[in-house]
C-alpha cells in the first residue's frame, strides 16, 4: 500500500462510476432525491485533486486526509458515511502488517465506524448491505496468499450484497420513507459502493 496505489484505485473507481453515471443517477431518483451520483463524483474529483499533495505521505495520513476531504466537500448521507469509512480506516493502519492483512483490519474498522455513524446494520437497504459482507469476507480471507482469488471472491460478495437490496424494505436512509414502494429498486449507495469495490478488485485480478 502506498500513495501511488491508493490514487490509482481512486482513479479506477472514478472511471467505473462515471461509466455508470446515468444508472446511479436514476437509482437515486427513483427512491431518493437524485443527488447521490453528484455527491459521489464531486467527492472523487476532490480526492483526485489531492494526488500531488498527498501521494508521498504515509498511507494512514493519506486515508485520513482523504476522509477529511470527503467530509468537507461531499455532504449528504454518502459524504458523512464515506468520510467516516476513510477516517476509520486510517486509524487502524499498521505498517508492520502485509497489505491484505492491513487492509482487512482497516476496512473492518472503517465499516464498524459507518455502522455507528449511520445507526444502521446489514439488511436495511443501504450501502452497508455491500460493505458489511465485504468486510467480513476480507477478515475471513486475510491470510489467503492468492490475492487474485480474494479479489474474485470479494467481487461476488459485493454484487450479491448489492442485489440483495433490491427486494428488502428500507429501514434506514431516504428510501425508508417509501416503505413498500422502494421494493424492487436497488439502493443507489449499494450500487456505487459495489462498483467501487469491483473497480479496486479488478486492479488486483488484472495484475
Amino acid at each position, binding site marked *: 500500500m502506498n500513495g501511488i496505489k491508493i490514487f490509482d484505485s481512486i482513479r479506477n473507481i472514478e472511471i467505473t462510476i462515471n461509466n455508470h453515471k446515468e444508472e446511479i*443517477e436514476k437509482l437515486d*431518483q*427513483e*427512491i*431518493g*432525491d*437524485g*443527488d447521490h451520483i*453528484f*455527491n459521489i463524483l*464531486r467527492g472523487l474529483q476532490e480526492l483526485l485533486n489531492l494526488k500531488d499533495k498527498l501521494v508521498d505521505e504515509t498511507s494512514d495520513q493519506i486515508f485520513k486526509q482523504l476522509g477529511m476531504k470527503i*467530509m*468537507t*466537500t*461531499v*455532504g*449528504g*448521507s*454518502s*459524504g*458523512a*458515511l464515506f*468520510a*467516516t469509512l476513510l477516517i476509520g480506516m486510517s486509524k487502524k493502519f499498521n505498517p508492520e502488517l502485509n497489505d491484505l492483512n492491513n487492509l482487512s483490519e482497516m476496512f473492518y474498522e472503517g465499516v464498524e465506524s459507518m455502522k455507528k*455513524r*449511520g445507526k444502521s446494520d446489514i439488511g436495511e437497504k443501504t450501502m452497508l448491505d455491500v460493505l458489511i459482507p465485504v468486510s467480513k469476507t476480507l477478515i475471513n480471507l486475510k491470510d489467503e496468499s492468492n490475492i487474485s482469488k480474494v479479489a474474485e471472491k470479494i467481487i461476488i460478495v459485493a454484487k450479491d450484497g448489492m442485489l440483495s437490496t433490491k427486494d428488502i424494505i*428500507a*429501514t*434506514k*436512509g*431516504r428510501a*425508508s*420513507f*417509501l*416503505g413498500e*414502494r422502494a421494493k424492487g429498486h436497488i439502493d443507489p449507495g449499494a450500487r456505487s459502493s459495489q462498483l467501487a469495490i469491483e473497480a479496486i478488485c479488478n486492479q488486483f485480478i488484472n495484475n
Partner: protein
Amino acid sequence: MKKFVNEVDNILSESLIGFGKAHSDIINVNLSPDFVSRKNKPNKDKVSLISGGGSGHEPLHGGFVGYGMLDAACPGQVFSAPTPDQMEAASNEVYHNKGILFIVKNYSGDIMNFEMASDMIDHANQTVIVNDDVAVEDSTYTTGRRGVAGTMIVEKTIGSLAETGASLDECKNFGDHVNNMTASMGVAFSSCTVPAAGKPTFELSADEMEFGVGIHGEPGRRREKIKSANDLTKEILDNILEDLKPNNNQEVLLHVNGFGGTPLMELYLLFECGQKLLEKKNIVVTRSLVGNYTTSLEMAGGSFTITKLDENIVNHWDSPVHTSSLRWKI
C-alpha cells in the same frame, strides 16, 4: 434546462453572494465553508440557533436568519446535507455563551453531518430534529418521518424564545414541543430540475400527481390521478388531524406552503379549502401563513402544515422577527 445560470458549478456560490448583497443590512454570507449569519450580533447572551440542509428549499433556511429567528444557516449542495465544517465555522461565528441549538430536518444525511459537527465543536450544543411530514410512516424501526414545511415554524418560535435569554435546555424542549404540535403533508403536480442533473427528477403524466411527495421530489405515498382542491385538502387534512388529534375548538396555525412553481392564487384557494374544512370540524384557525417558504426548486404543488397553538407557541409566533423572508413588527 433553462435557468438563470452562468456555470452550473457556481450556481450556489453566485446565488449566495447575491443573497448577501441583497440583504447586507441584516446578514453576512461566508463562503468556503458556506454559511449565512446574522450581521448584528445580539448584545445579550442568548442561545445560538443554527439550521441548515441541502439547498433548493429557499427561502429555507438562509431566508430565516435574523433577529427573532436563526443566528446562522448552513446551505449544502442542492438537496445534499451540508458538511460538518460549515456548522463548525458557523458555530464559532455566532456562539454567545449560552450554547448552540441545531435545528435539523430528519434526513439521514442531515442528521449524520450535524452529528459530526456536534462532535467537532467544543461549545455546549443540542439538536432539535424536525419530523413533521405525516406522509410517511413513523415507526421505531425506521428513520421515521421527514422534516418539511413545519421546520420554519419551529425555527420562528424557538428563535423568539431564544431572544428572551432562555437556556439551551429550555430552547431544546420548546423546539421538541413545537415539533410535536406540528404536522404537514404535501402533493406535487410536477417535478423539479436539479441544476447538476439538468433534467427533471421524475415525470408525471398530464393527469397524475405525487401524493405525499417529499421536498426533494422524493416519491411520497403513491402516485394517483389529480383531484379537486377540496378532495385533496380533505385527504391531506385527514392525515394531519389523525396525527395531531386536536381537541374540540383547538386553535391552530394553518400554513399553506408552495413548493415553488404554484401561483399564489392557487395557494390562497387551498387555504380557503383548508380553513373551511377545519371550521366544519370545530378547529379554529387563528394564525395563518400562505406562500412559498419551503420549496423544492420550481416544483409545482404545495403542502398543508398545522400547528396546534398554546399560549407559548402563539406568543412566540407573534413576536417580532426580522429576516429576509419573514418580517413583522420590526
